[in-house]
């Protein structure tokens, strides 16, 4: 893994490097498009493979919730997404894609008659805010501490921090969250127990509302950062330990450069690459982790929506949330790939 292909760029010149980068990006784009298509298709097949007829179950539920017959257009929309038993699979698939193209994901059963897409739009900003901030924070903190620990491996700092991190990252995430909630929310009363904002403050971009969002979000964010930190830290530590022994680091030291400069510009810059690949992949897990966070703290995001919909067997919402989570993760991965190109000029696919 650490064996890197030496840059050919110096010989080939910068002219050919640019097209190769674009080629890489195009291949990745192709992959993500295919992945998005697979996710959509998986979403199509899941309710159809399960025992029973999902669409008639939903129609039945909807009618008992609303207490009235469904309009023909509502019936049609449900059947397009969850399957019309009388139509064959091929035409069902085309209907389904057509429905998605119109951004029509059906109607929520538990929140009748709110369309699923409305619920998604309400939840998405909360999750993006929470996950976005915490992922970047955890990555920066973990990588930073990992660099220091790896730079002086075997030092007192390293021998205390590294084993502690191993233990901390082995604790189930939701349990950390529960404990934090009990200690800081319940016992000490420093933070609110649940929710994403103060319900007494009118929502909007007023300073008081933003402050309440920050106060409510602090504890969930802290728990995510705490449990996501370990992976970055250990990965960066181990990579730094290996790069520190490289000849170019020795040379930099021999030249008399300051220790900090050698550590950051020579060792860390090279050690960070695998961690950055991991950063892209971790996004999927972070969304999963945020799911648990949102459940523990009743945070009004996508994960909480998924949780309540699974509990109430609200199939349209389940379906919609899964689709939106997958697509967001794919998009985030594509973004991370694009940034990676900037970081590593000798980009080589699969490395």
């Amino acid at each position, binding site marked *: *893994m650490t064996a890197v292909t030496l840059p050919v760029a110096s010989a080939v010149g910068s002219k050919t490097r640019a097209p190769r980068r674009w080629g890489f990006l195009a291949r990745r784009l192709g*992959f*993500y498009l*295919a*992945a998005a298509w*697979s*996710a959509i298709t998986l979403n199509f097949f*899941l*309710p159809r493979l*399960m025992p029973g007829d*999902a669409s008639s179950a939903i129609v039945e539920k909807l009618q008992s919730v609303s207490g009235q017959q469904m309009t023909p257009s509502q019936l049609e929309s449900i059947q397009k997404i969850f399957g019309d038993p009388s139509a064959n699979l091929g035409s069902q698939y085309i209907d389904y894609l057509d429905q998605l193209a119109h951004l029509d994901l059906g109607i929520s059963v538990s929140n009748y008659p709110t369309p699923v897409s409305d619920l998604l739009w309400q939840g998405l900003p909360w999750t993006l805010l929470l996950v976005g901030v915490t992922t970047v924070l955890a990555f920066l903190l973990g990588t930073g501490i990992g660099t220091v620990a790896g730079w002086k*491996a*075997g030092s007192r700092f*390293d021998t205390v921090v590294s084993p502690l991190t*191993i*233990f901390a*990252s*082995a*604790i*189930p*995430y*939701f*349990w950390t969250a*529960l*404990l934090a*909630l*009990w200690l800081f929310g*319940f*016992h000490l009363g420093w933070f609110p127990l649940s929710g994403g904002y103060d319900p007494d403050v009118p929502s909007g971009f007023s300073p008081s509302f933003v402050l309440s969002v920050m106060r409510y979000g602090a504890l969930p964010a802290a728990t995510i950062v705490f449990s996501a930190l370990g992976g970055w830290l250990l990965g960066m530590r*181990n990579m730094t*330990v*290996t790069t520190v*022994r490289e000849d170019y680091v020795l040379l930099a030291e021999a030249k008399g450069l300051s220790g900090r400069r050698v550590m950051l510009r020579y060792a860390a810059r090279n050690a960070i690459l695998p961690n950055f690949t991991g950063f892209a*992949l971790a996004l*999927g*897990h972070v*969304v*999963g*982790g945020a*799911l*648990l966070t949102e*459940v523990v703290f009743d945070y009004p995001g996508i*994960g909480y929506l*998924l*949780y309540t*919909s*699974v*509990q109430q*067997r609200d*199939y349209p919402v*389940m*379906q919609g*949330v*899964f689709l939106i*989570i*997958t697509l967001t*993760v*794919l998009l985030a*991965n594509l973004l991370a790939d694009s940034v990676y190109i900037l970081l590593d000029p000798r980009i080589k696919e699969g490395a």
Partner: protein
Amino acid sequence: MRAAFLNSWKVRIGLGILVFFLLLAVFGPWLTHLMGLNEQANDMSAIARPPGGRHPLGTDQFGQDVLAQVIVGARGSMYVGLLGALVGTTIAILVGVPAGYYGGRVDGALNFLTNLFLVMPVLPLIMIVAGYLQGTGLTTIALIIGLSGWSGGARTLRAQSMSVANRDFVRAMRMLGERGRRLVFAEVLPHLTGLIASMFLQAMIGAVMAEAGLAFLGISDSSAVSWGTLIESAQQQSAVLRGMWWWFVPPALCIALLGTAAAMINFGVDELANPKLRVARPARTARTARRLAQAGANR
């Protein structure tokens, strides 16, 4: 090699904890019986009692002994862990090794599949599937976990078998006319056993933690006892907000210990495989210096 493996204190502690929990999983129910505890009996005289007396770890809301539940729960959790890891590792081998060995179009297809599962958010996927299935036993949960969590292992195995496939002994066997399938599984695979063992360990911990997480999200078999269902019932009765720490701390601590054990073994294996990670620490005390000198003399 084997001696070096066991020489690392990290590996020894990790293996010790792992063996302890495995024994607990096998003999747990028998052990609780021996201690005169019953995980199902409701002791009406001691409800939600803190640790002490007849109940070393206290009792829960229903007067059930927490220690007995933790011991019996080891079996459920380890079962999910082992089965999930078995399924996941098997798929990882079947996908990763041929992809790396054959390359070309086979690799293209299998690698696409791997990457697809790599970027899929696994937990939401499991939740959806479990939601549609309605009612899931521990076996179903283990299978779902295994089926959705193999991609990381497959990627590592692909990279490794790619390098093994180009070594001389494999080339020689190929020239001798050995069949492709036999080459893959009899020549290439044995060289990956160390890696696969550490992958299996990691997958096992992952499955135990996933089971706990799923139970927490309400996807579990309420009749089965595992560390996950224990934490879930504690959560359901809001043990956290009532300060009943003896109910939710022990099962999670077991999971964390198991995870630490696996991480320590893997750390030790990594240091063995990658000598650069082995840090030559300066002998701080005279005693360690003497011991090192002795070890050097013995060698």
